[in-house]
């Protein structure tokens, strides 16, 4: 529990730094980077004390088992927040948003470390509920705000019900199919996958700083949550859950892939991200290392490219961002989708065909995005610092695509 206390302490320090920094971007960046440095120290602490993750879900409060991939996901989220701040300047996240983001990483860590479904449910409820309160304060009762409010309650309720009916030391029990449905429902609500696609599609209306909550925190947390649930439940429960997640994920990817390709330029990135959210859901549902690696690579590509693409402002650096996530070799988006096709091939030829189709749709949507970025009216619209950050991120995406094994091992501690 010592590391958990340290994590809470670090988050409070970061909160103080960011809040005291006021609107000075330099101090905010310094605060986020300081948190990152301290978090890196914390991660090394994890490595020293790391134990294998608990194999099964347990009753009651359970125990906390930090893993290397969890530390990588959370530290990566915080690092990308710093990048977002550096890229966006005054239009980036407000100090209040940054403070909330850093505080919520602690809640996400609790959700991803625990082996108790009850603690998991409470953490997910707190995480999504806090994001809802933030969005409600920022934007009033718009559609995405109402959607996430409903879905946070439903996700929490599904996890709580699963905790109640999981056969354990108690005498209670339920058919494995029911438990699988409940767990799949919770995962789809957190990831914004069918049937819970309300808020991901419309979240762009809330502004780029609010999109960061989804792109950098909810999506990675949901993906890792899915991976943990797939491995920590019995095969009788995991099997129907995986099939549901693959089906719903691919349906979501097809839906948003078509909308990303055929829709207007405005909000195209949000639709592309929603499409990849479906692919990530399906990739982890395959239950193979390739599927998990593909999901991680796609996540990291959106971490890197999203800072440039999240805003609808037309600017030249967006071209670089679109290339990174488009699926053009040898960038990370291509490697991620290639691994996804490999994972799907072991599942079913039809499924791998759907994944290929969605990859084509994403490529088309990215090409449309690139074309709009090359429009003559965008020339000279970007600052030099933005161009430098965009090129750095493109280089990182390239490294991710060329050496995916080393990159995922360095960041997350596993080899595809």
């Amino acid at each position: 529990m010592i590391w958990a206390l340290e994590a809470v302490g670090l988050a409070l320090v970061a909160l103080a730094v960011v809040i005291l920094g006021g609107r000075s971007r330099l101090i905010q960046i310094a605060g986020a980077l300081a948190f990152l440095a301290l978090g890196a120290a914390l991660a090394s602490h994890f490595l020293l004390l790391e134990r294998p993750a608990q194999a099964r879900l347990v009753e009651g409060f359970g125990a906390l088992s930090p893993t290397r991939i969890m530390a990588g996901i959370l530290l990566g989220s915080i690092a990308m927040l710093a990048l977002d701040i550096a890229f966006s300047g005054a239009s980036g996240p407000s100090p209040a948003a940054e403070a909330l983001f850093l505080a919520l990483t602690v809640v996400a860590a609790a959700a991803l470390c625990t082996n108790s479904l009850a603690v998991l449910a409470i953490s997910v409820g707190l995480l999504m509920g806090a994001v809802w309160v933030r969005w409600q304060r920022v934007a009033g009762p718009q559609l995405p705000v109402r959607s996430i409010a409903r879905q946070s309650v439903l996700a929490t309720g599904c996890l709580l019900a699963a905790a109640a009916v999981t056969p354990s030391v108690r005498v209670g029990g339920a058919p494995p199919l029911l438990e699988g449905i409940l767990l799949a429902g919770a995962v789809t609500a957190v990831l914004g996958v069918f049937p819970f696609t309300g808020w991901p599609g419309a979240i762009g209306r809330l502004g780029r700083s609010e999109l960061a909550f989804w792109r950098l925190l909810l999506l990675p947390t949901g993906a890792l949550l899915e991976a943990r649930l797939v491995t920590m439940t019995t095969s009788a429960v995991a099997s129907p859950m995986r099939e549901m997640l693959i089906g719903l994920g691919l349906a979501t990817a097809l839906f948003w892939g078509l909308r990303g390709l055929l829709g207007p330029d405005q909000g195209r990135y949000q639709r592309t991200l929603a499409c990849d959210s479906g692919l990530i859901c399906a990739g982890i549902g395959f239950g193979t290392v390739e599927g998990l690696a593909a999901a991680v690579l796609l996540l990291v590509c959106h971490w890197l490219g999203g800072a440039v693409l999240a805003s609808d402002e037309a600017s030249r650096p967006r071209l670089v961002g679109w290339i990174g996530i488009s699926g053009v070799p040898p960038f990370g988006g291509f490697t991620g989708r290639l691994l996804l096709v490999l994972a799907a091939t072991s599942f079913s030829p039809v499924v791998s065909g759907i994944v290929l189709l969605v990859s084509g749709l994403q490529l088309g949507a990215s090409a449309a995005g690139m074309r709009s970025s090359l429009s003559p009216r965008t020339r000279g619209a970007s600052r030099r610092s933005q161009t430098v950050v965009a090129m750095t991120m493109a280089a990182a995406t390239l490294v991710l695509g060329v050496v995916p094994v080393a990159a995922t091992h360095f960041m997350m501690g596993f080899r595809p």
Partner: protein
Amino acid sequence: MTTGLLAAAGFVGSAVALLSVGPRGLAASSLAVGLGLGGVVSLTGGFPAFAVLGGAGGIACLVILATGRIPSAASARWLLGNTPVVGRERVFDVRSLRLLAGVGGLLAARLLSGHLTAGTVSTQGPAFACLFAWEVGIIRVATGRGPSDLAMGAFCLAMGTASFVLLSSDRGTLGWVSLMVALAAVPLVLLARSAPWETGS
């Protein structure tokens, strides 16, 4: 006989939560659900289990009523900011909609409760009461027209879950069940007097 009566009381408590509207309705609902499901879990958990659920419902009821008398204690506005209300006409009034969904939920709970094993309780009545409370939570969330409805839904979901856990386990689970119920009661108290997102029938 006692088991059937207590299960029926749990069902009535959930039915009150299904049909109630407004802050006073929320206060009455929290009390009814707490006492009703508290009675159900007392079948296996005795007085401590009853105290956890009944106490959570009773305290939430008292705090919601108390905040109505102290305007400065109303927390929803500083928590959520201003929430402009949207008028929206519907085919059914919200209560009619909930009633229709509740009838479907009743049948579903009747069917599902036969497939759940809830500890040493021999009949499916108590499991039916828990399931119906959970379904009322889902209905309140799905038909919710504002934050207070969602908070009530979350409270019902947590109470249904807590009662099923307590029904099928020993007293070792009282700790985390109490935490879960208390955490569900907090948003109910905070959001009970929040402005709705939409009005109209």
